[in-house]
């Protein structure tokens, strides 16, 4: 039984794992687990992950959650190129420094617009305007720190080469972009970084990974995005209530 990855490409950390595996030629079975079809709530998925979250890695009997842990596991097991997760003490520390800050300041922040602009309207949930504004302020602050503290004059976030940090950051930033927020406007340094990341990934892999998320706005507008099934509503309302 080979490697299985439980992913929904609408999810930022899932995309990071997907891209990493694909880019590095790591063979895996894609077990698509669709959040808005209620598949996280299924009995089958509970056997995979009691916390009902994705991404999940299943390698034989070994089950692993948390995207950064999965990425580090894959990079070590499949001995991917050093730049992803450098062996050098200080270079590796920089990746972990980014991942720590990302967990507090990026994760939970950049996913919000999808919930407020697309999902909430579909389910009739109301999101107070002050939460939307607060989120915009949080995104602005995070983008400034991303540019000043992490990118600086480097080509990538933790050095001159692409690493796990860039992958994680890029996928989070793509989320609001997909629902029409031009985060990169007025931020030429970040825009240039974005282009470097996209060039590194290559357009085929980019299209393949971002198809679902980039179509979401169009689908919502044309009322083609499937209305989430009733059993997902409590989960959706919970996620929305968690928006600070």
């Amino acid at each position, binding site marked *: 039984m080979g490697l299985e990855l439980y992913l929904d490409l609408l999810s930022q950390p899932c995309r990071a794992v997907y891209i990493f595996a694909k880019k590095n030629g790591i063979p895996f079975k894609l077990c698509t687990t669709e959040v808005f079809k209620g598949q996280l709530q299924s009995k089958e998925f509970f056997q995979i992950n009691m916390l009902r979250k994705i991404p999940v890695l299943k390698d034989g009997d070994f089950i692993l959650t948390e995207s950064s842990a999965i990425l580090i596991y894959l990079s070590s097991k499949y001995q991917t190129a050093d730049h992803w997760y450098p062996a050098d003490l200080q270079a590796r520390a920089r990746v972990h420094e980014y*991942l720590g800050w990302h967990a507090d300041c990026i994760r*939970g922040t950049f996913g919000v617009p999808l919930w407020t602009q697309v999902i909430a309207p579909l389910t009739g949930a109301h999101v107070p305007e002050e939460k939307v504004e607060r989120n915009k302020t949080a995104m602005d602050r995070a983008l400034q720190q991303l540019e000043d503290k992490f990118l600086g004059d480097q080509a990538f976030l933790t050095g001159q080469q692409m690493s796990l940090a860039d992958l994680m950051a890029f996928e989070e930033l793509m989320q609001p972009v997909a629902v029409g927020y031009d985060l990169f406007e007025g931020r030429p340094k970040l825009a240039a970084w974005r282009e470097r990341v996209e060039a590194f990934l290559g357009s085929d892999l980019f299209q393949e990974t971002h198809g679902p998320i980039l179509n979401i706005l169009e689908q919502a507008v044309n009322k083609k995005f499937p209305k989430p099934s009733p059993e997902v509503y409590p989960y959706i309302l919970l996620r929305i209530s968690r928006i600070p």
Partner: protein
Amino acid sequence: MPLELFLDLYSPPCRAIYIFARKNGIPFELRPVELGRGEHLKPEFLKVNPLGKVPALKDGDFLLAESVAILLYLNRKYQAAAHWYPTELQARARVDEYLAWQHTAIQLPATNVYLCKSLLPHFSGQPVDPVRLDRLLGKLKPALRHLDQEVLATKPFLATEQLSLADLMAFTELMQPTAVGCDIFQDWPRLAAWRARVEAALGPELVQDAHRLVLQPRDPRDAQRDPKLAQELVQRLLERLS
């Protein structure tokens, strides 16, 4: 130039680093940063960590922020015993998994309980709001339940069969509300047993030393020292805890 660790022992991740360095005999200069006095926002500290947060490390010219990054750096540079961060792939992944999960699952809700129970009343002069406290304790509960009922059901420590960085981080985080009178262990026997196990493994004296500040009542003169700062802090806390 020796290793410098910029810490405020009121902060759980700072305590984890302090305990780790002391336990492993890592020589360092302690550079206290008093969050209560806004020292983390002053230009001198921002040169060390432009993100304006503790903990921070300075090793010669190398500056490093973020507690997990610092722990892993110290662990590797000073070649701590393997149980802290195993070399075996799957065991290490379990530690990585906990360290990633704990940011939002443990650190955030446990800190909020502490802020509601201790910092907010201290700086506002108002008594603890029991409704707010109850709500915030409720947000910590699912993670405690998961650790007690699922994680610790199959092993003595949180990531592996031995004490690791996961346990160290969890311990100092869960001591935060505990130290100010919220006994979060009372409903969770496995978690309580784990806590005793960790304390014994780290050494009660070292644990006591690291927690000395957070265990003692705050100086009531703090809030009056800079009323404007206190007021701003109260505003931010109310927003955060709403």
